């Protein structure tokens, strides 16, 4: 049993081995197949390698070709360069040729001109030929005559023909020939005759035309002579006119030059502008004052060329310039002393300006402006003011000392005085007071005369002001037992005036009235509105009056009427002069009525002043 089992197991193994062998065989076959495939692949690879090698070689060949092409191209480039150079040379040659052509053109031109000349010469030659033809015609005629003569000879020769038969025959032949020639000549002659006839006709026609022309020429000559006469006349009158124009122009030139010289020599600055404000004339003084040259400013707008400033150096806008103002309105504008001109070198000077519009048919066509430097005038003004202030101080100081010391003595401040001492001292004091008044009046007068008296109007209550003056003089009024009345128109509103001046006016006329009225007399003062725009101060007294023969002198400086000089030594003769000066400078008027000479008839003073006050800075008389 056991053996059996072993055999079967061996069989099993053999079987398995057989199977294995079969499998190995199968694998080996597969491997063989694979090997065969690999061999094929290897071969293919080898083939591919060969192809690649072949391609590489081809490429190498191509590269070599390219290199060769490149070399060729390089060569070509060089050739091109060479061609380019040749072309350049050719271009240069062409340029040269062009130049030559230009030269040739010039030469051609020259030749052409020569040809023209030659053509002209040919024309001349042609004319000569015509003349020659005429000569030939003449010759032909002569030949015809010669032919006739030859015919005569022939006839003579025919008579001797027998003898000279041979000769004759020959002559006949010659004659025949001659006849032929003669016929030809005859033909030409006839033609010439026809031509001559035609020429004769033409000549006749020309003669006709010439005659007509001669007639026309005569007429023309006639007209020409007439024209010559007219021309001569015209020439004469033209010469006269020329002369007159020359004379007139000379005169005009002279007068223009004269006017210009006058204008330019004016001592004040003169400037003339057109209607637009452009400068058209500027004189030497203006050039000098403004530091400008006429050629720089002529034709330019004045207000843009010259800077106008005020006292502080603030620039005045062009539209406020007097010239511009004169241009806009047809009013003359005169400026005060507050204008200064700033020169180019920055210096400035005060000036008085007057700009006047130039009117033509009511239209402004320009302006004339006159101005001057008022520096020195202002200095004089300053000196005047200084004089008045200095004089007022110097004159019043000793008077003040006398007055105040006398005052203390009289008051008994340094001990009592006896009656006589008091009386004497009182005289000293009163005389001194008169001196004070005189000095004050003199200073007022010099202020007025020097023009340093300023009028500065302000709104004032006239009744109050007058009342205060009355109050000041009340003691004198009552001391003389004068009956006094004051009437004031209540409807009157405030007026504009300089209170200091009104006060001086009222003080003066009132103190005069009090001074020159008898004790127990009468004074009436009234104030009313007069002619709507004015105020009238009326002051009447029953005083001494003003002598008729001295009434015209009453307002004269330092004048005192005879009748009061005898009665009262107190008085400066300046009061009414000051009153008149102030009133008139304030735009008012002062006058009086007095029966004069007749004692106690009194005087009435009238002072008329504008209600709106007139501003005058400064005033002068």
């Amino acid at each position, binding site marked *: 049993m056991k053996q059996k089992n072993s055999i079967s197991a061996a069989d099993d193994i053999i079987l398995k081995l057989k199977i294995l062998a079969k499998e190995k065989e199968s694998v080996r076959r597969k491997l063989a197949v694979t090997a065969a495939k690999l061999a094929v692949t290897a071969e293919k690879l080898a083939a591919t390698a060969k192809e690649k090698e072949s391609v590489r070689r081809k490429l190498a060949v191509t590269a070599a070709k390219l290199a060769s092409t490149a070399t060729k191209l390089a060569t070509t480039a060089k050739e091109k360069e060479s061609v380019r150079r040749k072309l350049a040379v050719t271009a240069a040659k062409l340029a040269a040729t062009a130049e030559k052509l230009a030269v040739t053109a010039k030469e051609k031109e020259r030749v052409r001109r020569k040809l023209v000349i030659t053509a002209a010469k040919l024309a001349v030659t042609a004319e000569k030929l015509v003349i020659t033809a005429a000569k030939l015609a003449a010759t032909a005629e002569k030949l015809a005559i010669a032919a006739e003569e030859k015919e005569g000879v022939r006839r003579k020769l025919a008579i001797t023909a027998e003898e000279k038969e041979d000769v004759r025959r020959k002559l006949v032949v010659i004659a025949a020939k001659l006849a032929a020639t003669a016929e030809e000549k005859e033909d030409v002659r006839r033609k010439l005759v026809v031509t001559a006839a035609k020429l004769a006709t033409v000549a006749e026609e020309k003669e006709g035309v010439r005659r007509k022309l001669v007639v026309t020429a005569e007429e023309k000559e006639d007209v020409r002579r007439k024209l010559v006469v007219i021309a001569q006349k015209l020439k004469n009158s033209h010469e006269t006119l020329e002369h007159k124009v020359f004379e007139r122009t000379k005169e005009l030139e002279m007068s223009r030059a004269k006017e210009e010289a006058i204008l330019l020599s004016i001592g004040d600055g003169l400037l003339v502008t057109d209607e637009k404000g452009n400068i058209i004339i500027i004189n030497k003084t203006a050039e000098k004052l403004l530091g400008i040259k006429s050629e720089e400013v002529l034709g330019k707008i004045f207000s843009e060329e010259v800077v106008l400033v005020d006292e502080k150096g603030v620039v005045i806008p062009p539209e406020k310039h007097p010239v511009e103002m004169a241009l806009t309105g047809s009013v003359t504008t005169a400026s005060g002393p507050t204008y200064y001109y700033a020169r180019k070198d920055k210096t400035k000077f005060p000036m008085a300006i007057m700009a006047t519009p130039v009117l033509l048919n009511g239209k402004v066509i320009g302006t004339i402006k006159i101005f001057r430097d008022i520096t020195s005038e202002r200095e004089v003004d300053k000196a005047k*003011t200084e004089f*008045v*202030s200095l004089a*007022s*101080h110097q004159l*019043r*100081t000793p*008077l*003040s*000392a006398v*007055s*105040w*010391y006398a*005052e*203390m003595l009289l*008051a*008994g*401040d*340094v001990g009592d005085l006896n009656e006589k001492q008091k009386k004497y001292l009182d005289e000293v004091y009163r005389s001194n007071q008169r001196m*004070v008044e005189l*000095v*004050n009046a003199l*200073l007022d007068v010099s202020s007025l005369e020097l023009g340093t008296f*300023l009028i*500065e109007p302000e709104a004032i209550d006239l009744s109050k002001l007058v009342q205060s003056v009355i109050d000041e003089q009340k003691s004198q009024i009552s001391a003389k037992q004068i009956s006094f009345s004051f009437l004031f128109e209540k409807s009157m509103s405030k007026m504009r005036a300089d209170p*200091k001046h009104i006060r001086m006016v009222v003080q003066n006329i009132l103190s005069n009235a009090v001074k020159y009225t008898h004790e127990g007399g009468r004074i009436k003062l009234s104030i009313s509105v007069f002619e709507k725009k004015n105020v009238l101060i009326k002051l009447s007294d029953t005083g001494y009056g003003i002598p008729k023969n001295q009434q015209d002198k009453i307002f004269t400086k330092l004048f005192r009427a005879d009748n009061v000089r005898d009665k009262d030594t107190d008085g400066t003769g300046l009061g009414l002069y000051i009153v008149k000066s102030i009133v008139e400078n304030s735009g008012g008027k002062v006058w009086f009525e007095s029966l004069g000479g007749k004692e106690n008839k009194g005087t009435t003073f009238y002072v008329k002043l504008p209600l709106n006050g007139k501003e005058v800075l400064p005033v002068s008389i």
Partner: protein
Amino acid sequence: MVKKIAKQKTVLVIEDERPLLEVINAKLEKSGFNVISARSVDQAFGSELGKKGASVISIESIERALHYIESLEHVDAIWLDHNLLGKEDGLDFVKKFKANGGRWSKIPVFVVSNAASPKTIKSYTESGASKYYVKSDHRLEEIIGDIKVLLAR
């Protein structure tokens, strides 16, 4: 004659004319005032210039004057002339005195001068002076009377 006032008031008088200065002082004292006087600003305030009798007034001297017034124990009013000696005048003094705001800057200043230009008078009143008198037109009594009235207020 002399009217004694309750408390003696002090007036500083600045005047350059000797005769006038003397009579003003005398009348003020007679009227019961205590007077500090000087011919010029410099002399008034004891400057060296003043002592030597020099009469130049410079800015410094007005400055010194103001300084001196500041140091005063008491002052009630100033009597001032316009024409002081030197370049500066009473107007310069008033302007500086009123502007410096010192302890006495509110006291009244009476300008008594012979310079009578309306412009000068206007400038003084605008600068704070109480009143302006033209010397020759006014009695001492009048001016002193006005000072009394004003100081009594």
